């Protein structure tokens, strides 16, 4: 579904942030992208979405990402931003949710149907007509996820979806992510969340892959994690 082939990228000339990155995520897989702050997780997501472009090839659903394929590739991907405030820009949750579908020429009736369906599935009906400015951080994150689901993407990319949430909202977001059947790429340094939601983990270090394998295996490797400024998930540290 998402494939990187020898991708390189630099924000400023001469300072490569992504160095010869290659990986392949199959349809239906749930992959955690972990690494310390500044390892390049957000950059990888933005490259996959075509918000940034570097050297090398990126394939979305078997098609190389370029000017011609950008629109069709983006249609298959949903991106939940790290900062929900920057994602929700319409006055109400409802208006934000129909924004994507309407742009993709879905009829208003169909868009309305999707909105109600997604809100019911996430148990968020109460948020529908609330103002984005007046809902809490946890509600906003859930609303941002709902906004993306209303577009019915084939793959969902989430940048640190559990950051800045209290334990209760964090749990709510984790359960929601677990319930999604789409292909998932989730960046985080919340390794407990990754363990709960992903079966495979890619560990990034300074723009390179330091490890790639089953979550249970990599997240147990204390030495590897510590070398990359990460800690064992609490759940595994205990026993």
């Amino acid at each position, binding site marked *: 579904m998402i494939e990187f082939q020898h991708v390189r990228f630099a924000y400023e000339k001469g300072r490569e942030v992504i160095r010869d990155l290659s990986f392949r995520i199959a349809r239906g897989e749930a992959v955690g992208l972990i690494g310390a702050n500044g390892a390049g997780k957000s950059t990888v997501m933005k490259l996959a979405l075509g918000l940034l472009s570097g050297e090398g090839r990126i394939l979305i659903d078997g098609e190389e990402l370029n000017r011609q394929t950008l629109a069709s590739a983006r249609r298959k991907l949903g991106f939940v931003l790290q900062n929900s405030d920057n*994602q929700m820009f*319409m006055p109400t949750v409802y208006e934000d949710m129909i924004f994507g579908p309407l742009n993709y020429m879905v009829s208003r009736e169909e868009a309305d149907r999707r909105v109600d369906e997604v809100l019911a599935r996430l148990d968020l009906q109460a948020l529908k007509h609330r103002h984005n400015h007046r809902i809490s951080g946890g509600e906003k994150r859930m609303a941002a996820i709902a906004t993306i689901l209303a577009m019915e993407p084939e793959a969902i990319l989430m940048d640190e979806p559990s950051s800045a949430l209290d334990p209760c909202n964090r749990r709510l977001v984790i359960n929601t992510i677990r319930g999604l059947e789409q292909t998932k790429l989730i960046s985080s340094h919340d390794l407990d969340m990754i363990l709960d939601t992903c079966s495979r983990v890619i560990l990034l270090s300074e723009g390179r892959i330091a490890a790639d394998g089953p979550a249970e295996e990599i997240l147990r490797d204390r030495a590897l994690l510590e070398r990359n400024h990460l800690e064992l998930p609490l759940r595994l540290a205990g026993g």
Partner: protein
Amino acid sequence: MNKMEKALHELTEMDDLAARSSPVHALHPTAKLLSTIAYIIVTVSFDKYDLGGLFPMLLWPVLLFEISGIPLRTCFYKLRIVLPLVMAVGLFNPLYDRAPMLLLGGTAVSGGVVSMLTLMLKGVFCLMASFLLMATTPIDSLCAALRRLHVPGMLVTLLLLTYRYVGVMTEELAIMTDAYHLRAPGQKGIHVSAWGSFLGQLLLRSMDRAQELYGSMQLRGYHEHFHYAPIRAFRLPDGLYTLACGAAFLLLRFVNLGRLLGGLVVR
């Protein structure tokens, strides 16, 4: 809540006002838009000494405020920042136009004073009319109406995004002023020496956020034009309202009601 957050709160309150219901709210946005534009044009076109003729123009906004249930108080409260600016426009007229113009209770009033008052009233009237439009019409419907009138999509999008974006800037400003005051306790406002870096930071931060926002719009399939909520059809009553307003404005403009009434009484 600090001052900025309050401002932000007020901005969302405009959306709330526009979501109420009243006969004025129920009018077609195009009818309201056209009548407001006509009102502003007619108001501005009054002669600068025609204070008496201008005054009856106040009737229209006052009447609509009454019908729409939006308190005039709210209007003046929200416009408290711009009102003085508008009023200040004519402030210097009395200085260079000192020829006596009319007698009021035995004292001569100069042309400058009359034209100052006329200018101020024009500003206040136009602000009242614009506020009324915004307070009774959701911004999306207004944009949809503009599109129907074939205003270029880019312009309308710009208007909509500016309206939304003011919120983002205010939010960044709120965070930054809070951070500043936590480290400069007891200081009123922001010290001049910090203005430069403060403004630079604000611009950078808002630009970063704007970029993310725009990225998130693009990822959701946005290219250049918005899909506004459909607005209902323009019906006969909307047309009649627009025509009636237009006729009333012309009447007020070209028939001096004050003099007419005065004449009636004397005769």
